[in-house]
């Protein structure tokens, strides 16, 4: 177990290094530098700025410097906000994104799993058809369409919500963004739960349990539910990724000053922020995936976690 964990951690670090390297060189290729090309400052000032960002050194030195700094969890100064280290900018922009993401996660799982089970227990009856129809619609409508339509209907037409206020007493303003963010995953989780539950309900041990005369509730929740949840667990990784990338869209539509919107704004002219946010997002995902894998080993005793590493 310990051996496996160590191996996984090494692999995660390698992944992070690959990402850091790729983003470093990609961000060097992005046109634009730390000063406006329209009104170039004087040569001396430019030299000073270049020295501040290490831009006057050879690229190999820059790379080494950047990686060494990242290893110390320092992401260096931003281009747009001269005196601000990137990590501080990330810490400032992350909370709204995190709140939204968690809310969406809760909606996806808290609503998707019960809906999926409901549909599975009423297989091929109207309730099932309705749920499935909504679910395939949810998978098909892109998040930016869903968000814009929700914005139009509930903010512009009905005026039920306000936009652009986060936290504080106006927490209802989080509902629409969270729903938008959760839409796809909610539908996906519903479909997955339904399929998985139907499969489990067909198993021999479930039939045995029913034949034995156990109460239906007990069969569903104790015998079927736990096993049906295993595939959902594997989806948690991609789910987190979907919520991260969804934030780019949702924060743009609902004017939320989060990390996703900040990243998109920084893409053209702030390579340090791009590198930093990419690394931050990747680390989040990697840690999340690792946690899910370990959890999988705990929940399903048939899987020896060590043996999975051999695969």
């Amino acid at each position: 177990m310990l051996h496996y964990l160590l191996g996984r951690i090494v692999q995660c670090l390698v992944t992070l290094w690959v990402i850091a390297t790729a983003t470093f060189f990609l961000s060097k290729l992005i046109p634009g530098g730390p000063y406006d090309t329209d009104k170039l400052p004087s040569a001396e000032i430019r030299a000073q700025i270049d020295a501040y960002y290490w831009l006057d050194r050879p690229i190999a030195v820059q790379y080494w410097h950047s990686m060494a700094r990242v290893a110390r969890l320092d992401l260096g100064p931003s281009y747009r906000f001269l005196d601000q280290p990137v990590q501080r900018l990330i810490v400032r922009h992350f909370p709204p994104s995190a709140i939204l993401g968690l809310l969406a996660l809760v909606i996806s799982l808290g609503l998707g799993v019960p809906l999926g089970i409901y549909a599975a227990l009423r297989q091929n009856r109207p309730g099932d058809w309705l749920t499935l129809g909504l679910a395939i619609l949810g998978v098909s409508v892109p998040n930016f369409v869903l968000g814009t339509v929700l914005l139009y209907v509930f903010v512009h037409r009905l005026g039920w919500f306000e936009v652009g206020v986060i936290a504080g007493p106006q927490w209802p303003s989080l509902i629409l963004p969270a729903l938008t963010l959760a839409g796809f995953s909610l539908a996906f989780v519903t479909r997955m739960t339904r399929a998985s539950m139907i499969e489990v309900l067909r198993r021999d041990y479930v039939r045995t349990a029913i034949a034995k005369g156990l109460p239906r509730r007990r069969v569903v929740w104790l015998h079927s539910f736990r096993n049906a949840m295993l595939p959902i667990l594997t989806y948690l990784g991609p789910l987190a990724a979907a919520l991260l990338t969804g934030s780019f869209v949702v924060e743009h539509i609902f004017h939320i000053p989060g990390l996703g919107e900040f990243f998109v704004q920084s893409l053209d002219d702030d390579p340090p922020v791009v590198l930093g946010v990419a690394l931050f997002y990747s680390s989040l995902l990697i840690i999340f995936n690792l946690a899910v894998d370990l959890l999988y080993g705990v929940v399903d005793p048939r899987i020896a976690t060590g043996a999975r590493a051999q695969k």
Partner: protein
Amino acid sequence: MSKNTGEAVGAPSDRNTGEPPALRFPAWRKFRRNRGALAGMVLLGALAAAALVAPFVWPFDYARGNLSAQFHAPDLIHWLGTDEFGRDQLARVLYGLRLSLLVGLVAAAINVIIGSIYGGVSGYVGGKTDDAMMRLIEVLYGIPLLLIVMLLMAVFGRGVQNVFIAIGLVYWLGMARIVRGQVLALKESDYVGAARSLGASPVRIIFRHLLPNTLGIVIVAGTLRIPEAIFIEAFLSFVGLGIGEPRASLGSLVAGSLGNLESQPWLLLGPSAAISLLMLAFNFVGDGLRDAFDPQMQR
């Protein structure tokens, strides 16, 4: 999704051919029986036909505006209204639809090509090379791929070709795994041994003997890629990284309507409906294909 409601396995049409039905495209027959998949096919055909025929039939151009006709509400002349430059919204939506289809097909094709070569080599060569190549894929899987696509777009700049390249370069990982699995199974078969003993080179064996035999599965997996690529293009254009003016993408059209939501809400209708229907059609077709070919196959 498939609902095989009690129809007989041997459909009547097979009776006269004298061939056992199972030997001829069983997957295709399974697909045909799937009503959702068929509906998806019809919808997809209708959308594609509308997109392709539009420039010859519809009197308005997607790029040429008419400044005396700004922000018209939908009427009998401009069915979906006009935008801030007086451009016909329906022409723009149909152009975006054409672009979406193109991006989906081309990006999926690039994924198939890269994935096939990578997976084919990895599976056939085997041993340490295979280990190393698969380890690399594992590492790449840890990366949020959309981030990399966005970075590539920031580097390349906007443009249709750049969208193809960025999506094509990044999303082949799953395809490589599928092809590798197929090749691993196929390479032990007798005909490959025969080719090898005749002195065929590894390159020839991979490209002439192995990859063509993975084609069925690869095409199915590639079809499932198309809606993903379409979504990514629309997403990129929505956040302002994908396709720029004067071209229209379904994503950039939705983004454009966002600014005028209060006063010109009709601009939202066309692009939203178009991309949602397109994704819906592809999802139905994809589900049908997946059920028909291999219920276990995922991503």
